[in-house]
């Protein structure tokens, strides 16, 4: 019976032509979004590769130079393109592309790609993920608003029930058909994205298995979104007696849940947990660094000094050895201040990212009113374009900064001790400074950070399906 109902519903949608027409329009939009995404991201990838090469060349061609001057010139850490950024660019365009690994300062990433995007891009997001989150519910609504209400209007529902078909079976059939159509569109989008990600994969990118898992995770969460959207559509179609009312109600729900609430939730989160202003952040950080710096003559300072020397020598110092050791005092002072300040910078940036987490938690709370918010969190996490991915990059870049600056300071510490106040490192020294090899976080870390969002979207899908089932078993009014 179920199969024949599914077949009948499917044939009805095909004959109506709406399903095919709408699916074609949506597929066209998705294709356009995919091509746009791929074109933007591949241009960006090319420019990263060129910039990295140019940066290495400029650093290595410094000639004879004081290591501390070189530490100010330093290197740039380029953020690689995320595995699925053509699918969902997420917030990557709003967080900067490159970090200057300068001595004394932990810099935020510079050059947000969004600053160069047209003003109009702020009105609507045209990524594949944006189109899916926006259009999938709309497609579901258009396919399903009249599923039950029009049967009621035509009087065929009474006839169907009278002929022995239960409302539960009927709803299940309609549910399967709509979910099937939406899932086909989704599958095409995700499979294309995964395939292109694998196709354009270079040796520095993640493993193929990681990409496949990301694709599967995206399929899973968007699939749950489809289930919840379809369930809500059929629920409202069953509860009202006219197709027009069902359509208007569903469109109102769509406008609020898909268009308004994601924007509102982000805006409210920023109002409740305001991000620090740049000048406040830097003033506050400077004060903290100042407070954290011990007096040069204090035992704390001496302890750090000792640690720095031991680390540079690769062995523990013997008692009294520190006074006899020949060391460039400027180089030592620079490295000690790096070690002391590094903790302060890490705390300041950790608090900044912690504030983003608070904002995310508030948005999560609001995703109890709209599954689109949870979906956006999950989609960005699995695409590697969320704030967590950026934080990972920022922390790794900071590690690289510490290691480069340490190397340059140590070069200075053990040279120029014989009275030369401005030691110049030889021209070939710069090539010994290691490159920044950044490995993007794996899918497991995205999953760990996304469990609450997954529970929310699972809850939406489960609650929607359960409510539909309950309604079909208890509803007597046909």
């Amino acid at each position, binding site marked *: 019976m179920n199969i024949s109902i599914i077949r009948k519903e499917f044939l009805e949608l095909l004959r109506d032509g709406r399903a095919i027409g709408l699916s074609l329009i949506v597929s066209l939009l998705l294709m356009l979004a995919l091509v746009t995404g791929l074109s933007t991201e591949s241009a960006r990838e090319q420019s990263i590769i060129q910039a990295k090469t140019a940066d290495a060349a400029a650093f290595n061609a410094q000639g004879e130079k004081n290591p501390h001057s070189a530490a100010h010139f330093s290197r740039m850490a380029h953020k690689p393109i995320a595995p699925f950024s053509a699918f969902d660019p997420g917030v990557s365009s709003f967080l900067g592309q490159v970090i200057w690994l300068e001595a004394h300062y932990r810099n935020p990433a510079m050059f947000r790609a969004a600053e160069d995007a047209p003003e109009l891009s702020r009105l609507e997001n045209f990524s594949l993920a944006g189109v899916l989150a926006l259009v999938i519910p709309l497609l579901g609504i258009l396919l399903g608003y009249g599923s039950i209400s029009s049967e009621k209007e035509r009087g065929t529902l009474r006839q169907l029930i009278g002929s022995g078909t239960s409302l539960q079976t009927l709803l299940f059939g309609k549910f399967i058909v709509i979910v099937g159509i939406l899932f086909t569109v989704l599958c095409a989008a995700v499979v294309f994205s995964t395939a292109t990600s694998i196709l354009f994969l270079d040796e520095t990118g993640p493993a193929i298995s990681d990409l496949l898992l990301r694709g599967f995770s995206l399929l899973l969460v968007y699939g749950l979104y489809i289930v919840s959207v379809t369930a809500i559509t059929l629920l409202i179609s069953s509860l009202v007696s006219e197709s027009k009312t069902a359509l208007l109600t569903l469109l109102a729900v769509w406008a609020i849940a898909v268009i308004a609430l994601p*924007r509102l939730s982000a805006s409210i989160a920023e109002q409740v947990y305001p991000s620090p202003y740049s*000048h406040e952040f830097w003033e506050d950080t400077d004060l903290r660094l100042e407070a954290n710096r011990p007096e040069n003559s204090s035992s704390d300072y001496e302890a750090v000094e000792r640690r720095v020397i031991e680390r540079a020598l690769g062995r523990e110092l013997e008692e009294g050895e520190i006074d006899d050791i020949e060391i460039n005092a400027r180089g030592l002072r620079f490295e000690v201040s790096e070690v002391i300040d590094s903790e302060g910078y890490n705390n300041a940036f950790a608090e900044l990212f912690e504030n983003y987490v608070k904002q995310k938690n508030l948005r999560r709370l609001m995703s109890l009113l709209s599954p689109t918010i949870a979906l956006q969190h999950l989609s960005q996490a699995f695409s590697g374009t969320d704030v967590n991915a950026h934080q990972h990059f920022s922390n790794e870049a900071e590690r690289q900064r510490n290691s480069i600056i340490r190397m340059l300071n140590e070069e200075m510490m053990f040279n120029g001790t014989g009275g030369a106040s401005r030691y110049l490192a030889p021209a070939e020294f710069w090539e010994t400074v290691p490159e920044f090899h950044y490995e993007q976080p794996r899918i497991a870390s995205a999953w760990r950070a996304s469990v609450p969002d997954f529970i929310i979207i699972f809850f939406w899908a489960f609650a929607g399906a359960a409510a539909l089932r309950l309604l079909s078993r208890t509803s007597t009014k046909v």
Partner: protein
Amino acid sequence: MKSKDLIKYEWRVQFSNLAAYSVFLIFTGLLFYGGFAGKAERDARISVIEAHEAAVSETMTAWLADLRRLEQGNNADDLPPTTGSAMDVVFASSLPQEPLSDFAVGQSDLLPFVGEISLWEPDIRLFSKYEFADPVGLAQGSFDISKAVILFLPLLLVVFCFDVVSAERDSNRLSLTILQVKNLRRLFWQRMVFRASIVLAFTLISAFIVLLVNSELRPTGDRMAIFGVWTSIVLFYGIFWCALIALVASFNNSGEFNVLTLLGIWVGLTLIIPAAGSSVAEILYPTPSRLAYLAEAREVENATRLRESDVANEFMLDHPELLVNLESEFPARVSSAFLITSTVDEATRPIVTSFEEALSERERVLSFFSYLSPAVGIHGAFNEIAGTSSKRHQSYLRQARNFKADYAELVGPDVVAKRSVSSELFESVSQFEFIEDTLLERLGRSIGPLLFFLLVSIGTLLLTNRRLKSISPISY
């Protein structure tokens, strides 16, 4: 049926029920929230500008006091060797907030609106430290009253006006109605005008309340004038959508068909065309890579350091009047930094120019899209009158760069000659002031699409009027 009776009937049926109250409540909530969020953004920007100006003023007061001590020669021994160096002069720069900037956040949450101008920083790093606003909020696009109007006003008009005729058709009363009212056209337009007026009046009254509350009940003349322009744009937009709804309704299809058609048009005009427009513009005219700009700047910085003495000699040849103060205690790094920064700025100027060219080409493409969708034109017009457009921000950045270049030209010889500047010279240097386009100039950039859509609306209304004649009681 008299007009008065019709209005009473329409009010009772269309607006005096729980569903209508709910829709209006949600819409008001969105408008008010958008208005207040816009105000919070604007106030935040103003406080950042004030803090920045206070900090720069404090720094420069201390710098000037030191310079005066040096000039007067009293207790000058403890002064640092760089006292009076023109390199250490910092200028405050900011983009002034326009009277109605709380109504459209535009690009002001993303693009720089404040920054120190200093000769220590090359152009590329002049505004590189951005604000730490929530990236998710930025990606979603700030929510303000103008955006609420662009996205939701058409939907509200659709909800209340789609069934001016179809309500009768769907309930099989159309023939009877036509026979009773004699003039269907009059009934159609009366209903349409009444319903649309209620929605538009409600929107404008809500916006006016937002204006009053955000101005603490004392809006200035400037603010009122720009609000007048904002109101006119909203009316243009409303009229366009009313004309479109009327046209769809005049085809006398079922209500369901009307809703679906209008929804499709809404999705196309307010979501797909703007999104596709910006993507097409980005693909056709990509800006040069910022990373390439950075790489070029670093390469030049490195090359200049390696041939610093040559660069200094070239500068001397350009300034034959220059006499280097051989007894100066100015560290060499000061003049060296000046030469490097100037050389980097000069070498990267073509890249900055190509950025500007790409942006203006994009604007040309987008101006084409603003004739395809009123949402595109309206979005640009709202940002222009609120002073939050990309163009205004880019103009600010350009003016800041030019100001720095002019100042570098003025004091460059002193810096290279390792001389301090005089306090008179410092006081004679004018501070950075943003040169504003007039409101008319800014409006002029958006008026074309607005007038075009007004003409389209008039044409649509005339066409609808003609179509209404074809609805006859015999066919239904």
